[in-house]
């Protein structure tokens, strides 16, 4: 039994810029719940002081609440690059503002259809209290192009080498023995099906699988019969692993936004259910 190696000697470390966002709303603020009840969506964009990796995904008066600081690049094309290159576990430096000089960690990425695309950054408490919208962060991006040489059928997405080292999956009988909090049925995937795998997130529809009960932000989860090699979609006998980036949603077809980490044939995985497979513990947040 050995820790599975990655091609770390080949990976570039690059700097990308994102600014702390502020929430956006239309003139009509109402969204509609699954039961047809109007509500004002709260939780995406800006800074959230209330929830963090390790918090429950459900139970907030919110719609896909983003933990910590939510950043984006104000230039749309540069934001696409930021979203594609930033990987979960990557280090972040606060460049401007009252918290300048402090450091954070990328915990996920989140997209709302036709609205915004954000990278989510965990900061220590003092820094979180000090940052404001507009503060500039630098993401030290690393992980795009990552692979597992001994399992070339696996595709890595948004998986930083820092998280890989902390997660430390093992090679056992030519399979990747990996800890996840739960394995989910394919019908849990809602909004985000058909998206490019590397950039943002897919939603886990609450109610579609009892195994979603007790889900926490930061949980590593696997979805069976689901592929994310290039785009996300149903594919029997394949498995996709992601990390829960946001809280749950009251909107039909939505739910906890989950950022893709790894995908490949089911036969390449030996998944072990372990509640410890959460970013709060793995990255000591």
């Amino acid at each position, binding site marked *: 039994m050995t820790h599975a190696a990655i091609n770390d000697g080949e990976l570039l470390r690059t700097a990308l810029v994102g600014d702390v966002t502020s929430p956006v709303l239309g003139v009509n603020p109402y969204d509609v719940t699954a039961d047809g009840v109007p509500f004002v969506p709260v939780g995406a964009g800006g800074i959230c002081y209330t929830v963090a990796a390790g918090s429950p995904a459900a139970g907030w008066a919110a719609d896909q609440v983003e933990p910590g600081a939510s950043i984006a690049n104000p230039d749309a094309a540069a934001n696409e690059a930021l979203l594609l290159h930033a990987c979960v576990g990557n280090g972040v430096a606060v460049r401007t503002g009252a918290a300048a000089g402090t450091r954070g960690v990328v915990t996920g990425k989140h997209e709302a259809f036709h609205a915004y695309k954000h990278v989510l950054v965990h900061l220590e408490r003092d820094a979180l209290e000090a940052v404001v919208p507009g503060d500039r962060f630098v993401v030290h991006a690393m992980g795009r192009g990552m692979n597992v040489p001994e399992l070339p059928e696996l595709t890595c997405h948004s998986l930083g080498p820092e998280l890989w080292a902390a997660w430390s999956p093992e090679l056992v009988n030519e399979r990747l023995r990996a800890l996840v909090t739960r394995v989910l049925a394919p*019908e849990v995937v809602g909004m985000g099906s*058909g998206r490019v795998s590397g950039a943002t997130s897919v939603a886990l*529809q609450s109610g579609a699988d009892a195994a979603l009960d007790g889900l926490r932000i930061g949980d590593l989860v696997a979805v069976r019969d689901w592929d994310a*090699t*290039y*785009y996300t*979609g149903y594919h029997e006998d394949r498995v996709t692993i992601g990390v829960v980036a946001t809280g749950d949603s009251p909107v*039909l077809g939505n739910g906890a936004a989950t950022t893709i980490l790894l995908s490949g044939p089911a036969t390449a995985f030996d998944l072990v259910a372990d509640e410890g497979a959460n970013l709060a513990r793995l990255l000591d947040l």
Partner: protein
Amino acid sequence: MSAPRTNADRLVEIGVQAEVAHPTHSGTYAVDSYGRPIILPGMAGVVANARVGDLVFPWAADHLEPGVSAGNAQRDRYQALQFLACIGNVVRVVTGPAAGAEGRVTGKHAFVLVDFPQDALDILAPGDVLLVRAIGQGLRFLDFDDVAARSCSPALLDGMDVEVTDDNRLRVKIAAEVPAFMMGAGLGMSSEWANCDVMFTRREVIERLGFERVRLGDVVAMHDQDHRYGRGYRAGMLAIGVVAHGGHGGIPGHGMGVATILSGPRARFELVHADGANIRNHLSLAA
């Protein structure tokens, strides 16, 4: 048995401007479900040789929109067109050599999809102005509070020959039944917006689930789907839709698009498989 009572006589009909959309392209390849780079036609413009009633799959196309794809260059007008247009609405060509030709809305995707008679399809071109006679949003069943109608014109409901059974359910003729795990892109969006893709992007899945003969315009049932206020998974709910766009070998997570027309508890419906459950018949579309 009788037709369900509705508020159709209280609906207003609005003239909405649209135009035949021009195809656009990002300049890069997409990737199909076999990992191959693809550039395939199908979206926007005029597809003159694939029409409602034709098979969904045997086309070298991605997101194949049969007939005419209607949009509007102004964003707010485009949104109004997307939400107000209902399947079965009458569309008239206003400008160009096909001016005066009359068609019907047959589906929704990124554009509103319109079928015209073949002689009009042969001469229609991007930029031609259209008028959509939008009627149907706001349609309600007076005796079925828990069943929602979305993008369903009164003309389509009449043509579908929906009936109320003796045990007070809506009898709907369908061509196929879709399991929830196949529902993909379109989940999480508004019920009236575009459609929801059934992830038929690989031939082996189409064959395994027996969908080789499904046709553009077929009325299909989607299980464990709640499409009343948005679209998503919900055990025990049902959505009825119209196959709006086709093509296989497409992008993973996408596939055959089904535009929502009805949704409610499964128990409120009696599903009847019928060969002719296609809007080409229901709307008596011209050849």
